């Protein structure tokens, strides 16, 4: 008589699962941000790492404490709060006082994410709202751009001798000054928010995410293509526009946030085009030199409507009726 087993686990099929889970996806996003952090550390110095680590710690702490107060299960292990922290840090000037960064983290995690129910429930990207709140609340420090000798001569040219802050390339363009070369722009030898400066490093991270199938190319490609096309329409240099400001960071890492972007490929393309369109309209017509955050936030709000318009059609006979 064969040995018998009578207490086996009974569970519903499927009994296998794809390797990717929420934590591994968030870990991949953190890994993809490393090249950009490395360039920022080279350009801005150790302060880039200090700001990043602080924002991660604040976000994870706020996630933990708010879940605890709301008597919900602990979710810091999914790494989504760490991702929000790092992306928010990338959106801040490197010398921003740490306590202001903490305010941004609080708004991102507590106000935008946890009050709405936590991961998956927020209608807007937490890091973007955190950045916009700081931008409005602390306008001065949020527009204080560190400059140094590692950067393009064009950025240093207009600054006073011994100045520690200066203009961003978009600021130079708005003021009608000489802008950095496209190569300097692409590599990231420029001033700006801490993690947005190096298009090359951000693209490298984006390629990693696409290869790992963490993101689909739909949003970044449609976003960037729209920016390029509209640059030509407005008579601007498309390479400069793509590498300047937060376009790369936004297109690759922020507009692709699953929770706040459409769920179908066609919806994502519409979303990306919308982001590109609003970015360029703000850059060209509005009083702010940069518009990526506002563009993405606006499209976040439109996402449920885009989802409704781009729902997949069920596979069934054309007449729709089912013969019984």
């Amino acid at each position, binding site marked *: 008589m064969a040995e*018998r087993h009578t207490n*086996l686990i009974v569970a*519903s099929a499927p009994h*296998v699962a794809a390797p*990717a889970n929420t934590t591994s996806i968030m870990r991949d996003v953190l890994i993809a941000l490393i090249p950009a952090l490395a360039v920022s550390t080279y350009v801005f110095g150790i302060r880039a790492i200090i700001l990043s680590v602080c924002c991660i710690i604040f976000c994870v702490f706020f996630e933990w404490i708010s879940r605890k107060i709301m008597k919900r299960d602990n979710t810091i292990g999914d790494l989504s709060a760490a991702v929000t922290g790092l992306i928010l840090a990338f959106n801040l000037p490197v010398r921003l006082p740490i306590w202001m960064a903490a305010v941004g983290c609080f708004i991102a995690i507590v106000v935008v994410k946890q009050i709405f129910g936590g991961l998956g429930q927020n209608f807007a990207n937490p890091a973007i709202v955190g950045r916009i709140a700081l931008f409005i609340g602390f306008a001065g420090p949020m527009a204080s751009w560190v400059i140094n000798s590692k950067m393009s001569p064009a950025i240093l040219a207009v600054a006073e001798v011994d100045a520690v802050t200066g203009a961003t390339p978009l600021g130079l363009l708005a003021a009608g000054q000489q802008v950095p070369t496209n190569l300097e722009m692409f590599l990231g030898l420029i001033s700006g928010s801490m993690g947005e400066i190096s298009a090359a490093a951000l693209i490298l991270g984006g390629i990693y995410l696409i290869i790992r199938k963490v993101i689909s190319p739909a949003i970044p490609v449609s976003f960037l293509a729209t920016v390029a096309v509209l640059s030509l329409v407005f008579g601007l240099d498309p390479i400069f526009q793509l590498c300047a400001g937060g376009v790369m960071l936004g297109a690759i890492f922020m507009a692709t946030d699953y929770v706040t972007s*459409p*769920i179908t490929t066609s919806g994502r393309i519409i979303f990306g085009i919308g982001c590109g369109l609003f970015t360029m309209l703000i850059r060209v017509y509005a009083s702010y030199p940069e518009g990526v955050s506002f563009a993405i936030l606006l499209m976040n709000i439109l996402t449920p409507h885009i989802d409704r318009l781009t729902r997949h059609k*069920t596979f069934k006979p054309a007449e729709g009726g*089912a013969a019984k």
Partner: protein
Amino acid sequence: MGLTKRLNGVHVDHSKNTAGMAIKRMEDPEKVYIPMSQNIGAPCKPLVKAGDAVKVGQLIGDSEGRISAPIHSSVSGTVEAVIQGMTQYGKTDTSIVIKSDGKRELADTVVPPEINSFEDFINAARDSGVVGLGGASFPMAAKLNIKPGSVDYLIINGAECEPYITVDHAVMVTYTRDIVDGIRNIMKWLQIPNAVIGIEGNKPDAIAAFREVLAGDSAIKVHELRQIYPQGAERVIIYETTGRVVSYGMLPLNAGCIVSNVSSVLKLQHYIKTGVPLVSKAVTVDGNIVVNPQNVEVPIGTMISDVIEYCGGLKEEPKKIVLGGPMMGRAIPRDDLAVMKANSAILCFNGDFAQQRKETACINCGRCVATCPMSLMPAKISRAFKDKDVEALMELDVLYCMDCGSCAYVCPARKPLNFEFRQAKAMVMEASKK
């Protein structure tokens, strides 16, 4: 043929560890426990009682039901008892316990049937005891009993798209000619002009074997299916091979098609050729703890634990045993249950594999949406199910879900999506009754 729509699916690790292994016939176990409910439709009533001597192929259970298939003894020996016991489906059912004498003597009734008409053919299909061996267990005679000439496509399902399972593959390369003969018989008596054998591209030897046997036959085609799960799902294989769209609530017949699993055709042909009805079934015994994974021809009614022992037993304590493939198979609570006609695999896994998946929040990643072969919106359906919103569930076409599990497989939040949808479908059905 150009298909207008490319059905989605998911790339699942094939894990076809037993591919290329011949099917070994296991020796009779000491006892078999033959359940009387082995098909969709009416269960059978026992025709023997304790103490009766039986032989292989002897009729031991039958039903008057229009949709039913008779049951035959899988061993020669003596009926020990007629009992009520638990089946694989977790239900209590009548089973006939037969003590084997190990001689495998054939019953006198085992003679090839004489077939001169469509009615003879349908009777033979019934007497063969064959049911849909792809897992559906629909009686073959009921499936084939159509108005001759009313169907123009016979689709033979050799996709075997589930991981691990390789018995259909083994059968296709070993009995290529018999399967083709079986296909030709069905085409002849049902007056079906075209047949297509759908085989997933990961079995090039099976495709080549059929192409060789079928050289010069333009009525039967071999269709290489894409290597993506679930190409073998009925609605998917019909679309892939003929371009016809069969939806929820429709039978393949409504689209002029009959779909049959390759092993079902072989078992029917085997009966027509030899008179031996369906008394054994080939199963893949695999997983991550079986000592000698292999393909085994098992007498119907053999305890699953006996089959595992025949394969050398297990390297460690099993935590999960799945009948069928890991995508759609059923996890059974215990292994002292009988093998039934439609089983295709016994997969044994240890605790590492069987770990319960911890469900987390949906992050709206869209993997399920990009995966659903029926182009449903699983993430949205899940939300509507959580809200118990029957109207939204209907509007989202939840009834079209075929429970293939692709969405749950890819879900990074580990949500049991198709399990939810099964309940959602029940909710919708219940509401539409009112």
